[in-house]
């Protein structure tokens, strides 16, 4: 480190009101009072009362989100006859970078396909919601929905099995996938 590397900064010279501090204190107090007045009297604040107000209900310019772009909880799609579309090819679990999809294939009871998933578990706590499974799926069986408020009381509840994933499909069937 050479002396030329040192940048000498001049401290800004204080004005008279800066030096006596109190006038600037009053100025600062005035600023906060303005904010308090805005919140308390005019109800103008930057808070969203979350469960009652949601970001997807707001336009993007005022802090909302485009929920159509959100990759949330998975669902297992059903075909017209109500059977899971999945053919247990294991493409999704192979593609998954977080190794959160666990599939056990079994012989299909239906004549139009060879295999079907006897078990299909996704650990939603491990999942990084990258959407690779969705990309890899050859028959559009697995999809990410836009549901983002995913909560549970135990870790076990966060491991979604086949029935639960199919239930997610029933709940979100009207939404168009991403």
């Amino acid at each position, binding site marked *: *480190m050479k*002396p030329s590397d*040192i940048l*000498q900064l*001049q401290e800004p010279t204080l004005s008279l009101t800066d*030096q*006596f501090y*109190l006038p600037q*204190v009053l100025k*600062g*107090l005035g*600023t*906060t*009072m303005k*904010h*308090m007045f*805005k*919140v*308390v009297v005019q109800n*103008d*604040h*930057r*808070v969203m*009362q979350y469960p009652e107000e949601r970001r997807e209900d707001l336009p993007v310019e005022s802090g909302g989100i485009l929920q159509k772009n959100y990759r949330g909880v998975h669902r297992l799609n059903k075909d017209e006859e109500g059977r899971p579309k999945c053919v247990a090819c294991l493409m999704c679990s192979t593609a998954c970078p977080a190794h959160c999809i666990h599939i056990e294939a079994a012989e299909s009871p239906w004549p139009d396909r060879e295999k079907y998933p006897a078990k299909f578990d996704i650990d939603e706590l491990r999942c990084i919601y990258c959407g690779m499974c969705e990309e890899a799926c050859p028959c559009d069986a697995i999809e990410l929905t836009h549901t983002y408020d995913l909560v549970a009381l135990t870790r076990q509840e966060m491991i979604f099995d086949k029935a639960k994933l199919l239930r997610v499909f029933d709940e979100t069937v009207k939404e168009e996938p991403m």
Partner: protein
Amino acid sequence: MDQVKFMDAFVQILNWLEIHIPAWIIIALVVFTVSLLSIAYLILLERKVASWAQDRIGPNRVGLGFGIIPVVKNWKMWGLGQPFADGLKFLFKEDYRAKAVDVVLFSVAPMIMMTAVIISIAVLPWGGIRQTSVTMTIPAAVADKTAYAQQQFKSYSERTLVGQPVPVAGNDVYAVATNTAVANLPADQYTVTYRYPFQIANLNIGVLYVLATLALAVYGVVLGGWASNNKYSFLGGLRATANMISYEIPLGLAVLAIVVMCGSLDLGTIVEKQCHSWLGIIPAWNIFTQPLAFVLFLVCIHAEANRSPFDLAEAEQELVGGYHTEYSSMRFALFFLAEYAGMITTSSVCVALFFGGWDFPLLPFLRGPANDPMVSNWLVLCIVRALVFYTKTMLIIFIFMWVRWSLPRFRFDQMMALAWRGLIPIALLLLMVTTGVVYWYNGQSYDQMGARMGLTLLAANMLLTLLVLGVSRLLPAAPATNRRVQVANSRFNFAPIPKA
């Protein structure tokens, strides 16, 4: 009709309590209960003020139903249940104590802090002086009726007789006194008028008592920091001690200016001197005659209460949590509550010293007769006075919070410089000026001299402020702080900085 009956019953209960129980016991119970509840709600208010200043709403979810009590369980009530939820949380948290702490001091420190702060509320004059009379049976044989009546009040030491016992007209009865010594003697009924101060302890050195007990609170801080056996706690304790001791001086001097002016150390008397108006409208509060003393006092009580911008004892960025780093659970809560209790105490002292106590010019009925403004013949009036006092206190506390969320923290040397190079010289000058003015008016206090002395003091304050502003420009600058120091053999050493 029902309301009238209810009020009647209420007044009757009050009267019964007043006659049979020493007033200070009831006042102490009420004052301490109300202050402890206020502390809980001040924490909620602090969080609310913080949010408002930051464009947020603040805690608003926990109602008084806590989600379990039927009917009200889903009412949010602006978060009014939050303090109780917090308190419960503190009670049930693990009371962790590190192995290396000094067990006794560690446990005692928060208690000292809380006790010291809360007992200083005792001398505040909440409601002036209450005057009332009772009918008393006094044996005819007793020569000194006044002494006998006073003797009857021996369990009520705060009661003093006013004038002589007056015989009840047309009601000469021969009652039997219960006192065995004068049993079966003829006796008459007398009306005995007495008064008692509407406060917990009527101490004629009230101001001194408050300053002394508040200074004791520093023991809590320093013992807590020391007993934790943790260098950050210790540094926090050291800082708090230096802070509180330094600001004790200008605080005492500012208070002394008021004491010299009012000629009394009794908070009740100081309030009494402020209980009149100039020109019919301007209240004779000390803030109008001694604005400089008020500013000094306000700054010092911020430091005394260890509040921002003087809260470097608990500077999170440097010292983890300061002196209460090692504390958890209810022990920590005591430190936390003591901070707010300190705010209540210092603010109410501020109200008594500078804002006329319970006096309020828009409510002229609060004052008693002009020659004796402290005295009230109605108990309810005393209670209303106490409420006015309390409201003023809360407003001062709001200033505390407002300041906390507006100003950044001082650096340690800045804080010390402010006390020793700024406040203490100004406070000394102010004390000298006040003493001079009082001497000029032949030692009479300003309520006797009327508005003239008040105006003189106000002018003196203004002049002193201007003088300080002018002279401080001429004083030599403080030594440079944060200067770069060369270290032997360091590769970060630099060539001497050229003078600009």
